[in-house]
């Protein structure tokens, strides 16, 4: 009965438009009432909801959001784009290539695709359309490249996955490095074909003086990923401390070095960060309650038994889960999907002997592809707002760019070493 209420409640409440956090909390409450009747302690609701948030790792989420927003507001993203253009602007499809490389660099400071698409994306889009690139192509490249953000470290979805699975977030971050670079390379290869088709302009090979000036201009922001990853890898900082240091660094660059961040900017960024944090955090609180009731109902065990009864092959199970996640990604936000499905899927993959770091990266990449697929691809909606194109036009132009992302997904499913080699090499395994 509890399992029925948990499942039905989730579907019905979500479909009628209830906030997802409330959907999870109400379904859990319904299941508790169905299982225990009115004898359950009311105090358990607030206990489980706050207990889920008592994890120092989760504090990294607002700090990563704050870092990315400070970088965007301080105009650091513009410097990164100029640097990327100097670096690869001479390749076929120059500015489109720069768009992808800038997203990869910015991914080393931000952990969310939406922050990339809405901040850096606007700059990239303006530059490309001003230089005669077709708007639809510019939108497609910007949308597709923004999904590198949550794969290349740091990554908010990976922090959430670490929270639900107990896997080291440092290993997950390092596991995302190679797939993130592969995504950039595959998208850049795709752009070469478009460059020939549309005869896209490109800049001359930069002189040493131009390249050096551009490097100096963006040198300080470029240190952010090194501070973050280097600090975690060398064991100097925990991921949360690294996030705090990164936010502090962004603040120092913006206020004291570039002198562009005013008090008004900082207040606006703080309000936006607090709002985004509340949205994600309340979701985690609701999911904590839901996860606890899910365990009590025995659904996780039954689900694992059912899934392993389909096949004993870990590879086939992984393929089935991939297909399932791709469909889920079309409908659910990545944080929501990880919070709901993580507790169900992680025990299954652990039983099958699949490395949870490998699975974590696969799960996040699947859900990132979902950001680019209708009907709920959030990045598609952001690009519609930023570009002024119709939603259908954004969808149609972005669809071909799913191909290189699928290629990377297939590669990392078939070759786990692409994900696990780096964390195993640097952190032991």
């Amino acid at each position, binding site marked *: 009965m509890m399992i029925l209420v948990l499942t039905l409640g989730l579907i019905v409440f979500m479909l009628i*438009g209830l906030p997802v956090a409330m959907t999870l909390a109400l379904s859990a409450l319904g299941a508790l009432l169905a299982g225990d009747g009115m004898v359950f302690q009311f105090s358990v609701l607030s206990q489980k909801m706050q207990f889920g948030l008592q994890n*120092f790792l989760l504090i990294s989420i607002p*700090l990563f959001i704050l870092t990315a927003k400070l970088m965007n507001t301080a105009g650091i993203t513009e410097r990164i784009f100029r640097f990327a253009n100097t670096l690869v602007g001479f390749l076929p499809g120059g500015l489109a290539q720069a768009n992808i490389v800038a997203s990869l660099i910015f991914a080393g400071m931000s952990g969310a695709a939406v922050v990339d698409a809405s901040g850096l994306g606007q700059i990239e889009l303006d530059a490309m359309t001003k230089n005669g690139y077709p708007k639809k192509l510019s939108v497609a490249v910007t949308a597709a490249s923004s999904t590198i953000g949550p794969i290349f470290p740091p990554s908010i979805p990976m922090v959430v996955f670490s929270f639900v699975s107990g896997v080291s977030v440092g290993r997950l971050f390092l596991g995302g490095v190679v797939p993130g670079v592969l995504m950039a390379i595959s998208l850049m290869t795709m752009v070469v074909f478009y460059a020939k088709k549309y005869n896209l302009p490109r800049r001359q090979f930069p002189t040493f003086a131009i390249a050096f000036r551009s490097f100096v201009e963006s040198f300080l922001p470029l240190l952010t990923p090194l501070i973050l990853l280097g600090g975690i890898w060398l064991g100097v900082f925990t991921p949360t401390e690294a996030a705090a240091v990164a936010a502090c660094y962004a603040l120092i660059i913006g206020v004291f070095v570039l002198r562009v961040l005013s008090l008004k900017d900082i207040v606006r960024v703080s309000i936006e960060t607090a709002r985004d944090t509340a949205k994600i955090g309340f979701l985690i609180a609701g999911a904590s309650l839901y996860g606890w009731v899910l365990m009590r109902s025995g659904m996780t065990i039954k689900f694992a038994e059912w899934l392993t009864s389909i096949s004993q092959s870990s590879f086939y199970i992984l393929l089935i889960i991939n297909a399932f996640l791709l469909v889920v990604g079309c409908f659910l936000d990545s944080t929501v999907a990880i919070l709901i499905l993580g507790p169900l899927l992680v025990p299954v993959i652990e039983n099958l002997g699949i490395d949870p770091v490998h699975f974590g990266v696969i799960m996040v990449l699947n859900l990132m592809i979902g950001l680019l697929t209708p009907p709920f691809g959030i990045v598609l909606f952001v690009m519609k707002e930023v570009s002024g194109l119709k939603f259908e036009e954004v969808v149609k132009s972005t669809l071909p760019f799913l191909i290189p992302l699928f290629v990377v997904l297939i590669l990392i499913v078939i070759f786990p070493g692409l994900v696990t080699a780096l964390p195993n090499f640097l952190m032991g395994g």
Partner: protein
Amino acid sequence: MKKFLEGLNIIVLWLMFFSAILTVVCRVFLKIPTSWSVDLAQYSFIFLIFIGSAAIMEDESHIKITVLTDRLSEGVQKIFRIIERLLMISFLVIFTIGAYQNVKFNWTVGLPTVNWLKMGYMYLILLISGIIMIFYLCINIYSDVFCKKTHPSELGVNS
């Protein structure tokens, strides 16, 4: 009230930030690990989540999926909105009663690292958050049922 809550959240966000920075400075540079700053950061985080959630309940901007409801007529949407809010209120009432019980049980229970920081204070945050959310939801139901203006900010509750 919303502006007051947002102002409070800004202060708490930076308190959390400085607590996290202090943890790094003390442990890495001064070689004095400080567990109280970790606890302070965690309390600030919980405050940020629950008081922040209460603040954004005013315009109901929590993450939701509206693909089905967006396709419905305005009248049906209004009915759905009222049902949603009644469901949320029913949960929040039980949640708030539970939070009150936890405040009573834990009011004098201090944290091992910071004795003056009581467990009850944290549940008090949840209690206040629950009450504010119920308040905003009631206002929003009132605005949907009795006012032509649909947004609660037009009733002046966020000033």
